């Protein structure tokens, strides 16, 4: 049972790393890759079993992207699906005893959120050029202040929402296990079930908001 808020750190090349977060991230990556490879190996022209599910997910994702970003947003599909799977596995990994979610570390969530926001602005500038900068000054130049606050708020809210939810869930699991006698598992079980739900919802929210931000940058003007 690790202590809450105290992280094992390692020093490497002048940087400090949270060792547990890194290990859990690698485990998460391995699980995600394993699931993905298992689900997509032995693909056949006539789909059977899991292939149907995987294809349905990909097709649904493409439809979502087409609806929100237009056709030229398709290249973001692997990013979005990776994001969702990584967050889902991350969130649920912490519910296993002795494990921790990579997403209970602000480094992870803020890293992902900043990556998304950098992509949003980068793609916006790349795809729309001057128009993208101009839209911060609309409808009047004064709005640039509000828009700037909004743009800064986006990654912070993304990161802290996920971080707070997951960390709170894990803390409460530890606390419940310490508070309750071993013959009274009901509160723990209820909270665990709720945490599973929360993990899914938070992964979904993070992914959907990222898609919405990206859509804003990628979709062309005439598609409105």
């Amino acid at each position, binding site marked *: 049972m690790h202590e809450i808020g105290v992280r094992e750190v390692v020093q490497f090349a002048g940087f400090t790393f949270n060792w547990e977060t890194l290990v859990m991230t690698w485990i998460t990556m391995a699980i995600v890759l394993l699931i993905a490879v298992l689900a997509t190996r032995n*693909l056949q022209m006539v789909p059977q079993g899991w292939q149907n599910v995987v294809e349905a997910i990909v097709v649904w994702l493409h439809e979502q992207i087409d609806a929100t970003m237009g056709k030229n947003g398709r290249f973001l599909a692997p990013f979005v699906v990776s994001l969702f799977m990584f967050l889902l596995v991350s969130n649920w990994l912490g519910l296993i005893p002795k494990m921790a979610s990579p997403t209970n570390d602000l480094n992870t969530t803020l890293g992902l959120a900043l990556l998304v926001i950098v992509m949003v602005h980068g793609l916006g500038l790349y795809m729309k050029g001057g128009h993208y900068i101009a839209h911060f000054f609309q409808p009047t130049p004064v709005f640039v202040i509000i828009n700037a606050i909004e743009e800064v708020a986006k990654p912070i809210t993304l990161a802290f929402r996920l971080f707070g939810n997951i960390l709170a869930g894990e803390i409460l699991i530890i606390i419940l296990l310490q508070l309750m006698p071993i013959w009274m598992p009901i509160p723990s079980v209820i909270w665990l079930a709720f945490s599973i739900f929360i993990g899914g919802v938070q992964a979904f929210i993070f992914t959907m908001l990222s898609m919405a931000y990206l859509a804003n940058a990628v979709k062309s003007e005439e598609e409105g």
Partner: protein
Amino acid sequence: MIELNGTFIAQIINFLILVVLLRAFAYKPVVNMLKARQDKIQESLDKADADAAEADKLLAQYKAKLAAATAKAEEIQKNAEKRAAEFREAEEQKVKADIEQMKKSAQADIERDRAKAVEKLRTEMVALSMAAAGKIIAKNMDSADNEALIAEFVDKLDKDKIGDLPC
């Protein structure tokens, strides 16, 4: 608890690696498979359309051929009927002519026989009348009445009827 350090960079790099790997090992194959299936379905549909068009064309061709064949058969039948009718007509004509010919020759025969018979009878009648005349002359040679009688008798022999008998 919320301090940021090198993990921040590491996590971004980790995630980007994950994206690249997932794209290569899971996403691409699925998309390629979807695309391949779409292409195959499209191809099948196109092929089906082409086949249907081809079948329609063949059907039209066969129908046209059948119609032509039917028309030809009808023509042949008509020709045959016409020829048969002509042949029958000719045959009838020929038979009629033959019958006519036969009738004519028979009539001629009859006519000849009758003429012969008349000639023969006349000869016999002359002989008979000569004999009768002889007998009369022997009895009454001078009577002029008897001569007239004989002449009248001989004259009557020229008619179709000999005495009261029909020829």
